[in-house]
């Protein structure tokens, strides 16, 4: 077994894609530090909010890939029971977890600073709706696209979801801050 084998190349390539997305998201975060990071409780929300894209959209892509390979799902945008069920579940989970993150940040603000502003609950909720309205359909379209092109979406979608997810999440948070 060679050290620079197929696994090494696959891990390396996927990680390069992943960190490029991460660095772009980090750059937006650094440029808008005064708008995003100064909000009390934002650093409590941020890690979970960024991880959510991978946890929810990543699993969504993985379930779709399994269904595509087994022939239970056809790579067309026609409404089918399994695809619709996956879309509904992913949206529900994303919005529910955004709300939970908001409540956790609210509790931490209340306990540590005595602040009781409910804006910190609404912020991830609104950002979660915006980010997932983009990210979940994007995951569906890209998984079908890569499958139709003859690629294994399992090998590609992980880093794609984390990098696009980081960017949409930070931009969505920024939009939510502007709205509120």
């Amino acid at each position, binding site marked *: 077994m060679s*050290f620079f084998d197929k696994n090494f190349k696959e891990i390396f390539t996927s990680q390069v894609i992943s960190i490029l*997305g991460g660095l772009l998201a*980090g*750059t937006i975060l650094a440029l808008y530090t005064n708008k995003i990071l100064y909000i009390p409780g934002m650093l*409590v929300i941020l890690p979970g909010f*960024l991880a*959510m894209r991978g946890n929810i959209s990543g699993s969504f892509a993985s379930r779709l890939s399994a269904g595509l390979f087994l022939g239970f799902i056809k790579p067309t945008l026609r409404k089918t029971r399994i695809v619709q069920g*996956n879309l509904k579940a992913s949206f529900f989970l994303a919005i529910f*977890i955004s709300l939970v993150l908001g409540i956790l940040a609210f509790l931490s603000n209340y306990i540590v600073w005595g602040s009781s502003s409910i804006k910190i609950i609404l912020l991830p909720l609104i950002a979660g709706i915006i980010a997932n309205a983009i990210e979940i359909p994007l995951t569906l379209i890209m998984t079908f696209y890569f499958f139709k092109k003859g690629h294994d979406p399992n090998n590609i979608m992980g880093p794609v979801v984390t990098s696009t997810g980081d960017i949409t999440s930070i931009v969505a948070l920024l939009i939510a801050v502007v709205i509120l």
Partner: protein
Amino acid sequence: MKLHHRIRKHLQTLQGVRKEKHHHLLHHLHQKYRISKSTLFYVKEYGPGSHVAATIIMESLKILLFSSVMSSLGGLALEHIKFLFISILPLIILMPALNDMIGDYGTIISSRFSTMLYEGKVSGWHRNKELRTLFWQVLSIGGFLAVLSTVLSVAILSFLTDYHTTLMMGLKVLFIAVVDIILLVTILFAIAIGAGLYFYKRQEDPNNFLIPITTSVADFGNMVVLAVLAVLLF
């Protein structure tokens, strides 16, 4: 025709099996009719009798809640040193990239170790060459990309803003990124091996436990390590 009817009857029985239960019929159908385990699993989980959205929500909710709480606890560590953290702009640029990298390594290590367990390759895991190679591969890729992303974050800052990163600050950020990766990859390996062997011995699928556990530890650990090292070095 008779065979087709028998298989269909078995598959219908399978759809009625409780979701969390491993049914002997899965093994029987796989052995006798050569139907892949993935197909049988998909029929059991998302067959015509099941409510797809409800199944996914019920199975994912607990672990997502656990993961959110862990991430928020990690974030709380950073919130406590917020003003120090915000003053180190290269670290802010690096944070999402480090988070992604460490989370991805958790997934890679877990899924590869689970596969090794199923293939019976880890009876003497400490002498296993494949496992050792994977460890050094992940560690070297992580180390190299930590250096690369630190250099890029400093370059991005000097290109886009007036922020001046001193050599000492750049070296400290580089040290934080590299130590963060080395420490967490080692911890994730230890957890994947320990928990993987434990769940496998209990005849449970390590795939269902290892990825959520390692990614949660990665999220939490990354924030705590960043916070601790930032306080110690700045």
